[in-house]
């Protein structure tokens, strides 16, 4: 039994952590947050991540990737969440996953090396307004290889060179399609989010030329579902990273902050909340590890594992980042303080690839119906 990261995986995590801490601290995050008109995609960070292999992690070796698994990828996602780092890492890695899972060798050869090197930014557009995340929420229609409809919200559409769009064909069958930036009929509408560590927009398609991802291991609804599952796990990892950092910062502060002549962290109301949060975040960390491993190994329990991980991570992140504001007191409610970076990022990401409620309902379907 070995339920843990290997020494290499831990070293990888430390490398990414040190790099981000060194090159992209909270002041740098703040600069991105306070420039909502900017593209939110700092190139220093992006190039550095590319140098670390962070964009190549899941790409097969024959396409200049590292050929590693989701377990390795979640290590990076967690560190980026911990650092509330801006940029299209998650969504670009998912675009590459779509190609790896559903693309033909030619499609993979055309796009994967560029995505692995960070030369191309990819993004995924998998559902539309008010739609669910289980494939039924697809709002783009495919007529042959031309797409029409609006997908939203999409991460970093403005900087993306490649879009992976979920669409349903005339028979109602879902599939994944490639759309290139600048394609005819493709428009991007900035949507602005309170989470200043991301840029989000709607992707509007009007008879836009596209290419069906086909000839890979998965196709149709299976490919969409597999991509959703990976999106859920990487998002959960980001949420867990942020939750852990928020909790650590809160504890550090409450150990020192004095009121009534004693550190506020000596009050049992705070202690017990912190203890419960610590247990919750730890369980979410375990759940993300297990879900990533389950997908990597095609475990028959992967469906349950993914739903558990996303539900638990979303809840832990809401709780820990909300508590950060509460247990810093007034300063935690200010713009100058970093608590809102963590809180807003958690709050925006919690529903992506299925909210906690949606994943619990998924568990209900899997075990009660």
């Amino acid at each position, binding site marked *: 039994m070995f339920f843990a990261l290997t020494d290499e995986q831990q070293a990888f995590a430390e490398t990414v952590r040190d790099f981000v801490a060194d090159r992209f601290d909270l002041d740098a995050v703040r600069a991105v947050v306070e420039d909502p008109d900017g593209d939110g995609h700092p190139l220093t960070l992006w190039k550095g991540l590319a140098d670390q292999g962070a964009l190549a992690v899941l790409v097969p070796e024959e396409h200049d990737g590292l050929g590693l698994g989701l377990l390795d990828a979640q290590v990076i996602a967690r560190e980026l969440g911990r650092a509330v780092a801006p940029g299209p890492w998650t969504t670009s890695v998912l675009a590459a996953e779509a190609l790896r899972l559903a693309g033909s060798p030619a499609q993979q050869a055309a796009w994967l090396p560029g995505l692995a090197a960070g030369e191309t930014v990819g993004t995924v557009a998998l559902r539309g307004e008010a739609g669910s995340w289980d494939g039924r929420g697809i709002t783009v229609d495919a007529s042959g290889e031309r797409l029409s409809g609006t997908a939203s919200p999409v991460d970093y559409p403005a900087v993306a060179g490649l879009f992976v769009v979920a669409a349903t064909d005339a028979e109602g069958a879902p599939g994944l399609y490639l759309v290139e930036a600048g394609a005819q009929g493709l428009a991007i509408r900035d949507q602005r989010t309170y989470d200043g560590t991301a840029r989000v927009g709607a992707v509007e398609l009007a008879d836009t030329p596209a290419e069906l991802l086909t000839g890979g291991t998965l196709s149709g609804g299976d490919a969409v579902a597999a991509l959703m599952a990976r999106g859920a796990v990487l998002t959960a990892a980001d949420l867990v990273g942020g939750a852990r950092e928020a909790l650590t910062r809160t504890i550090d502060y409450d150990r020192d902050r004095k009121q009534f002549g004693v550190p506020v962290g000596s009050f049992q109301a705070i202690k017990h909340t912190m203890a419960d949060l610590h247990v919750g975040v730890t369980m979410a960390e375990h759940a993300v590890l297990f879900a990533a491993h389950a997908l990597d190994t095609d475990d028959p329990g992967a469906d349950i594992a993914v739903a558990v991980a996303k539900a638990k991570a979303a809840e832990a992140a809401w709780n820990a980042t909300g508590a950060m504001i509460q247990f810093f007191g007034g300063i935690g409610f200010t713009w100058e303080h970093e608590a809102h970076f963590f809180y807003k990022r958690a709050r925006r990401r919690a529903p992506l690839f299925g909210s906690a409620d949606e994943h619990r*309902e998924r568990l209900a379907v899997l075990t009660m*119906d």
Partner: protein
Amino acid sequence: MDLSYTADEEQFRTELRDWLAANIPVEWAEAGFWRSLDDAESFRLRREWEASKTAAGFSGIQWPTEYGGRGGTPGMKAIYDEEMVRAHAPQTVNTLGLTFLAPTVMAIGTPEQKAEIIGPMLRNEVIWCQGFSEPGAGSDLAAVATRGVRDGDDYVVNGQKIWTTNAMHGDKIFTIVRTEQGSERHKGLSMMLIDMNQPGVEARPLKQMSGASEFGEVFFTDARVPVKDCLGEIGQGWRTAMLLLSFERGASGVGQYTEFRRQYDEIVEQMRRFGRSDDPVARQKLAHCLVELECLRYHAMHILTQVEQGRDLGSESSMTKLQWSETFQDLWEAFDDVLGPEASLERPRPDVDLAPFQAQAMWSRSVTIWGGSSQVQRNIVAERVLGLPR
């Protein structure tokens, strides 16, 4: 990550499974079976069955063979816990001895104590109780007042213990006694192994909220304890007690997960039977429990990994206790959310017996109290794991 067990461990699983299949009567798996017996009969049956399991070599899985154990791995212990639940094996009757006392004796007992205590415990010839809590000393264990005074080769013990599990079945009780008169708190305590079958010891049952009397009170009135029956050094009872309690660490989450997950499935079955499985609120509540249950399973694998790597779990065991006990309690609260008013009825329909469910629901109130209450565990996590000031 590698979530598999070794070939030897899987071989052990096969052997154990075969033995359990051949040695557990089918009716024992039926929901109402154990409740249909009276307490004494149930205890006798379990006591005998467990002794036969020991004779077959399936007890003391991780203990060294010199003590009658199997000399197995932590993985085998996890497999054992899991298979016992799967096979509907009866609950052990000597839990407190097996979990706490035996490993302590192996660690610090005299050769005579090792020889006298461990074998008879494994064969269930001697049932052990734990005498820690007193009316005035619960969470604050250092407040114990039961006193022992030296008289020749004996100590003479006076005082009272309470909430003693198996008080009415116990043969011996490992007891924290204040042996240094006038000492305070953690000082001047000793761990005594007291024979309950003597005139100076009286056990009285206490009726629990469930109606059962699994615990009781133990009164010592000039009870005699030979000096050789002190475990660890005289006056070092606190240290012995802490060592003893540390053996709860690593307690099998794998087995607990298996048990609670089965209970979850049984609740789902009732949910369907009563036409409640499409109620969105009930679905959410129960699914929330599944999330926590699955986390318990992952956590158990994490703990097993730590144990296999030879790491000291330290205060992390407080997290394990919080996770399993709070989840178990939530699950049995969800039972009522799921079934509504039917949840409180023993026989909502002529062919449906919910009494075993209600017994679990009531029992679930105790697990956040014994073995260190949830409040005490949160204090430990906050102070010793997170470093918050006392």
